[in-house]
């Protein structure tokens, strides 16, 4: 018996994970007659993984400050070897993720897969959708170019127009009255720490529930 297998069995002898892994995760039976539209949840998750990996690596260079953000992004894109690939994958995965999460959501809606007993999973899905939107909004500011600055200016101003709570929301988002260093650091913290942690929690719930309940049969 080769070494990796021996290590695997040594671990499994103690943790007894093999059956759970095989039956409930990797070899879980699915209903007959599924089509390609069932793949978009998985594709969305794949894109999330790509975003996480490329994002982690970009933090090696990125600086969230008005003085250095643009220059550090320029540097990591054009001067670091393969920087345009890493940032390009992050950029396009982010864009595609909006598309795939929408297709996933539409499929679940049209097929009625959100119905009893899967309402809670639909709710976590909606939360994940909101988190993805928040990722997009916070990430958009970070390159600190004209588009980033004005999009965030407009976006936070729109929040400011909400009756009663508008001004509070706007100030909390910007970290003050104006858009600047305070906005950048909080958007950065949200983008790389708070939102990923929240997303992870909801993703685990999303996946455990779908494995527990199984996916709904096609129409």
């Amino acid at each position: 018996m080769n070494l990796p297998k021996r290590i695997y069995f040594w671990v499994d002898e103690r943790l007894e994970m093999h059956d759970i892994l095989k039956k409930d995760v990797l070899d879980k039976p699915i209903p007959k007659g599924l089509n390609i539209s069932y793949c978009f949840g998985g594709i969305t998750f794949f894109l999330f993984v790509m975003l996480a990996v490329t994002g982690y690596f970009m933090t090696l260079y990125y600086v969230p400050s008005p003085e250095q953000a643009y220059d550090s992004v320029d540097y990591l894109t054009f001067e670091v070897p393969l920087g345009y690939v890493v940032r390009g994958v992050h950029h396009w995965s982010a864009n595609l993720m909006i598309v795939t999460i929408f297709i996933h959501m539409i499929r679940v809606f049209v097929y009625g897969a959100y119905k009893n007993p899967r309402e809670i999973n639909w709710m976590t899905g909606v939360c994940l959708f909101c988190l993805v939107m928040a990722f997009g909004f916070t990430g958009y500011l970070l390159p600190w170019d004209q588009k980033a600055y004005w999009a965030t200016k407009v976006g936070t101003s729109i929040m400011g127009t909400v009756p009663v709570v508008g001004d509070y929301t706007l100030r909390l988002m910007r970290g003050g009255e104006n858009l600047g260093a305070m906005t950048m650091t909080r958007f950065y913290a949200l983008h790389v720490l708070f939102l990923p942690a929240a997303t992870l929690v909801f993703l685990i719930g999303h996946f455990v529930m779908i494995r527990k309940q199984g996916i709904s049969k096609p129409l």
Partner: protein
Amino acid sequence: MAKDSDLNRRKFMEIGIYTITGTIAAISGVALARFAVGSSFDKTKSTWVELNSEDIQDAAHGFARVVLEYEQKDGWLTATTRSLAYVKRVKEDEVIAVSAACSHLGCIVTWDEEQKIFKCPCHDGRYDMEGRVISGPPPRPLKRHKTKIEDGKIFLATETVPYGGDSHEPA
């Protein structure tokens, strides 16, 4: 027979999935590793810095303490870098410039004019006036800056080179 082919198809799909996943992971891993290494192994560019020749003392008077200040690219920033050298004129057309960075862990050594030695404040490393180790933990002599004299002007290279023995010429 039907059961057998079913099993083969299952196995084929499994191998296919692992192959595709493995290929993506391997390519991404190599690319990301190169990205993470970045410019870690790039050599810093050496430039010539002109010294005020009146500050440079003759050999009889020992070393002059010279602060080299120059602009250096630091990723996306251009930073002002300072390094310290001890310089003296040994001949009319020759100067030596001993780097003040201790060869042990990079602390700045001071020139003791009375004892004619370089002393490191961190771990008491001591060097003679050539930069050779007398005592303490330093593993190597002090490095030298390359020097040149053009039209009576003295230039120091920001780059340092290992001390090459008894000669004043750096190796």
